[in-house]
């Protein structure tokens, strides 16, 4: 299968990465060569194989549901590109 420009644009929309026409062209060719390589998997019969999601057999550990507050709001907000000292600030969403 081949990935066309329209598909590249669609994926970029889903991935929330803006892509101009020149970059889309380059991505189209890169992704096609990568998928050509990936398609090799179709030679393999996997009908009897169970999907492997994790190599760890252990059950997930449960922990007590308790608050472990470190009171580091200000430090966390310091890393944000824009805040009003109490909250993260983003462009207006509701008109």
């Amino acid at each position, binding site marked *: 299968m081949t*990935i066309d420009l329209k*598909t*590249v644009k669609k*994926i*970029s929309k*889903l*991935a*929330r*990465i*803006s*892509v101009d026409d020149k970059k889309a062209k380059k*991505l189209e060719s*890169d*992704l096609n*060569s*990568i998928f050509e*390589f*990936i*398609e*090799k*998997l*179709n030679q*393999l019969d*996997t009908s009897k*194989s*169970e*999907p*492997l*999601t*994790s*190599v*760890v057999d*252990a059950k*997930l*550990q449960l*922990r007590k549901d308790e608050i472990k507050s*470190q009171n*580091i709001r200000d*430090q*966390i907000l*310091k*890393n*944000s*590109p*824009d805040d009003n000292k109490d909250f*993260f600030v*983003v*462009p*207006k*969403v509701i008109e």
Partner: protein
Amino acid sequence: MSNITDLTLVDLVEKIKKKDLSSKEITKAYVERAEKSKKLNTYITEDFNNALKKADNFDNSPDFDKKIPGIPIAVKDLFCTKNLRTTAGSKILENFIPTYESTVTNNIWNEGGILLGKLNCDEFAMGSSNETSFFGNVQSPVAEKLVPGGSSGGSASALAAKLTPTTIGTDTGGSIRQPASFTGIVGLKPTYGSCSRYGIVAFASSLDQAGPMTRDVKDCALMLSIISSYDNKDSTSINFKREDYLKKLNKSIKGKKIGIPKEYRVEGMPKEIEDLWQKGITIAKEAGAEIVDVSLPNTNYALPAYYIVAPAEASSNLARYDGVKYGFRSEGKNLIDMYEKTRSEGFGNEVKRRIMIGTYVLSSGYYDAYYLKAQKVRRLIKDDFDDVYKKVDAILTPSTPSTAFKIGEKTNDPVSMYLNDIFTVPVNLAGLPAISIPAGHDQKGYPLGLQIIGKAFDEQNILNIAYSLQEEVNFKNKMNDWWM
């Protein structure tokens, strides 16, 4: 006495315990050498002044019961360090200051280590040559204009150039072992679940593992016993009995069954790598190991499966970089526009490429054909190893299908870059431990590595085999400090 920076970690620890050397002397020696080695571009963030202060503090009230008392260490910039910038080699995290410390680095400081600074790496650990970092490519100390490998390229380069006595990296598809092989050092990827992933910038969570990169196998055993720990902050951390890997290190290779997988004899592999593999086999045999021909029939499918699984997990892990809570933001007309511009400008080309692959294979209508298929293939690859381990104790292969290449040589061809990892990726898919040790040089004098793959949680065994091989191989680094 020889140069401080020539000593192994184990020797340094001994000297500091005997009070032959102070922490300050050691730290100063490394800082001075790093100052003269800027050309290699190994550091993203230096923390030298703090390191020297901490060394002073250590000398004033030393605690020699620690495993690495007063020893300075630089680490890959993928480990979050509290109050010290952590970038993952990305513009999007250029100014990120973590409010917490990764468990693995915390373990190192708890045993007396002192942070020297943060080492360059491929952006979000995505790359095999350290050319995708926002902070510029890393030079290999082996030769000018040569890549150190990746993604832990800064770590490999800094260690090989003797800018840190030891270091740690992370390995998702070979990111410790491939650069170790390219620069003539030892690198170990532990069993999945051995070293906590807490505080490590996530790439592909079902594959990522931290591990030591060291001058020799003894140092590697020491570092592993420090960083490996059960951690309830990582839900995939496994609670098993960890050994004192250094104390139990021995050359017991006699009677060990070592498998040689025929599928690793790939087309186009240079003769010198084939010869090196043969040399490893001969040494193991002479030391009393039993060599067994084995087959891992699905090896060829590991890399394509990896390039579905890893990008899929990455696309989901990297969704958090949206310009809101931390990191770089580019202004937009509205929220969505802001997200799209931020991610477009904040991520480099390789990271964007992988997010796009991951988004595509997880998108509606393609999930079964790609992602589910890859997970089924992953099962077959793990089954291959399980079958082989009924017959052998460990597997011996070359670490990489080629030696280090020139900077820029493979940047325009992603698939040829990906092929670097054909011998290392299957190990991550199966969650197994594997070590790469330097074992020889090619005609140009570039190092070559051998990889020993073990059963899950059998790190002691592969360390022991590596230790026996190391003695016989007698690898000598040929570096001449050309960059100074």
